[in-house]
């Protein structure tokens, strides 16, 4: 599944998005450069994760990439064509290819539309299908995401968070897109439901040959789902590379701090933590030079004056830090859970085996049908 094609499907060049605040009669105008000069190439068929703390601009970048927000600077190339300045009419045609899954399944579905109508809408806009065909497709899509086709007549409020996220995914799939941007698709969900939706997204990605841009703050989820990861801090990409490389040996001091802060579900594992002092500075007034220098231990005088640019360090990994050579790797270690005892390991494997068996035994009485069940029924 990894990099079956190397070519680029979507690319940002010097992409920037500035928000303006104030500017009324008595107010001074202020500017927030939420995304500032980002260069990023998304490869066909990959899952690229964008990670960072609140306010780092990851959601703005994702929205700008598919032009849900107009960029104020730079270019976005989709299949080699600049879409940053396309007129609205042409953009509407492209919407078919570029779809979005939102974080909050409670506010992103129209409460006055039935689930069927919500999923059908992209088909009405983007295809020539007649009503019967559309209805059939909606039924198929709902089943594919693990809902019953009879649920098409219900309204969003009748569904749980996980089910609503499935509806959002079905809607995004309806127009047969090539790129899906998922902005924190599982962060509002409970752990067990989160795992179901992650599996669903991964299955759909390979089934529909999708390119997935994943915005998330849960570093374990990103590790599990993505091929490459871009780390953002205050509007800039500070490190980008293969997920294994970045997680194995992060080079940017910010990435290292993030990795160390991950809570590990094993007692006594997060020994070196909370070593990133303070809050992320206000994007209204970002620090000069390297934006991370106010919280960085490696920072020297130069960092406060001169902002580093991304440079290639090893393989395809790029890091924006003057000191990446000095930042030793032994400060971080690969995090993992300690090994389990024989009895415990047996219990986990029993759980896995029996779950698989139960799911393949046909439909359960529970309203949510998991993806594994679906597959087995098709078989």
């Amino acid at each position, binding site marked *: 599944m990894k990099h079956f094609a190397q070519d680029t499907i979507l690319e940002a060049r010097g992409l920037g998005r500035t928000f303006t605040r104030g500017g009324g009669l008595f107010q001074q105008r202020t500017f927030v450069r939420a995304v500032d000069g980002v260069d990023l190439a998304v490869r066909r068929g990959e899952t690229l994760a964008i990670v960072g*703390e*609140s306010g780092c601009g990851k959601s703005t970048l994702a929205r700008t990439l598919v032009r849900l927000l107009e960029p104020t600077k730079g270019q976005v190339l989709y299949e080699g064509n600049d879409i940053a300045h396309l007129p609205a009419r042409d953009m509407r045609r492209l919407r078919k290819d570029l779809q979005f899954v939102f974080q909050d399944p409670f506010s992103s579905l129209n409460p006055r539309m039935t689930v069927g109508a919500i999923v059908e809408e992209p088909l009405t806009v983007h295809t020539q299908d007649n009503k019967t065909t559309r209805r059939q497709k909606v039924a198929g899509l709902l089943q594919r995401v693990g809902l019953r086709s009879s649920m098409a007549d219900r309204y969003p409020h009748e569904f749980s*968070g*996980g089910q609503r996220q499935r509806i959002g995914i079905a809607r995004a799939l309806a127009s047969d897109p090539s790129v899906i941007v998922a902005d924190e698709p599982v962060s509002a969900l*409970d*752990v*067990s*439901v*989160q*795992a*179901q939706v*992650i*599996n669903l997204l*991964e299955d759909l990605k390979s089934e529909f040959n999708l390119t997935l841009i994943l915005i998330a703050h849960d*570093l*374990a989820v990103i*590790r*599990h789902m993505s091929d490459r990861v871009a780390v953002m801090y205050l509007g800039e990409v500070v490190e980008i590379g293969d997920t294994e490389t970045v997680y194995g040996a992060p080079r940017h001091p910010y990435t290292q*701090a*993030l990795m160390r*802060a*991950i*809570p*590990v*579900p*094993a*007692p006594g594992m*997060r020994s070196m*933590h*909370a070593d*990133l*002092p*303070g*809050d*992320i500075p206000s994007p209204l007034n970002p620090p000069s030079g390297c934006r991370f220098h106010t919280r960085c231990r490696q920072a020297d005088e130069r960092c406060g004056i001169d902002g580093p640019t991304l440079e290639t360090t090893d393989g395809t990994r790029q890091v924006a830090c003057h000191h990446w050579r000095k930042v030793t790797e032994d400060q971080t270690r*690969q995090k*993992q*859970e300690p090994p389990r*005892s024989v*009895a*415990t390991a*047996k*219990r*986990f*494997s*029993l*759980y*896995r*085996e*029996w*779950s698989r*068996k*139960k*799911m393949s035994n046909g439909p*359960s009485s*529970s*309203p*949510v049908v*998991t993806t594994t*069940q679906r597959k087995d029924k098709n078989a």
Partner: protein
Amino acid sequence: MVESLEMQSDVTAGSRLLTVENLAIRFKNATANTVDGISFGVDRGETLCIVGESGCGKSISALALMGLLPMPPAEIASGRISFDQKDLLSLPAKTRADLRGDRMAMIFQEPMTSLNPSFRIGDQIAEGVLRHRAVSPADARRRALEMLERVKIPAASERLDDYSHQLSGGMRQRVMIAMALANDPDLLIADEPTTALDVTIQAQILDLMRTLQQETGTALIMITHDLGVVAEIADQVAVMYAGKIVEQGPVQAIFDDPQHPYTIGLMSSLPSLGERQSRLTTIAGMVPTIDRMPSGCRFAPRCPFTTVTCEAQAPALSAVSDRHLAACHLAPLENHLAEAL
């Protein structure tokens, strides 16, 4: 269940702060208890994590402990809560109000909604001190400043006159902690205090809570769905599912030797930071709603191991080892089930 609880309280009788026995909470017109007979104890200075997913009853239980549960529609269907030798449920409302914010305090998930946007944060902290202590407003303000310094808010004396909207999420949660600890409570209940925060800020807050707890000896009940947070901060763990405690014990035992299929399922659902798995193991289906609560084991409809017994009869919490309890007919699984199917 009750047996093992008594055994525990004998061992640590001197330091036991809170004992909850067979607590059941029911909402008006509901067909089943939302919280169904939970029992646990907390020692002074100890941290108990109650872990579970949305709707398992963990927040409702916390509100009941605090006496903040709206009654009606809720009612305590059965049980006893004993706090510092006092039988909480039989106390008059006024006495409970005196305890609240003084001997027991609570912090909530979303600090923005629990801080009053139209009062300065210094005044909000001082208000709690004035309510419970015979001090002058100036002393209360001094205490507020001292608390802001203790929760490591930079330039605390300037922040004292800030409004909550002027602070970041992490700083707001620090203010909440300052407010909760202002009267040196014996028990602090924290309901998902780090869920809305970024990982680096979450690490700061957990660090802070642990440090303060060591300094003050406050017992902590932390309500969370995040097993990473549990591993980080808990001494004791209670895993809740659909209104019942399905497993409880010392943190090391829960993580090293999980017994209940729900605990194992939860741990399996987490993406690993170590080796990359191809697919996540999941827990099928979802939490039953209160009107469709199974009469036997409440986890039975989602459990891969369900037997006829599980559907007929709810398992009692029983000891699997010293102080480690699980409510499963099949525990330990490896003795009851064969891997080859």
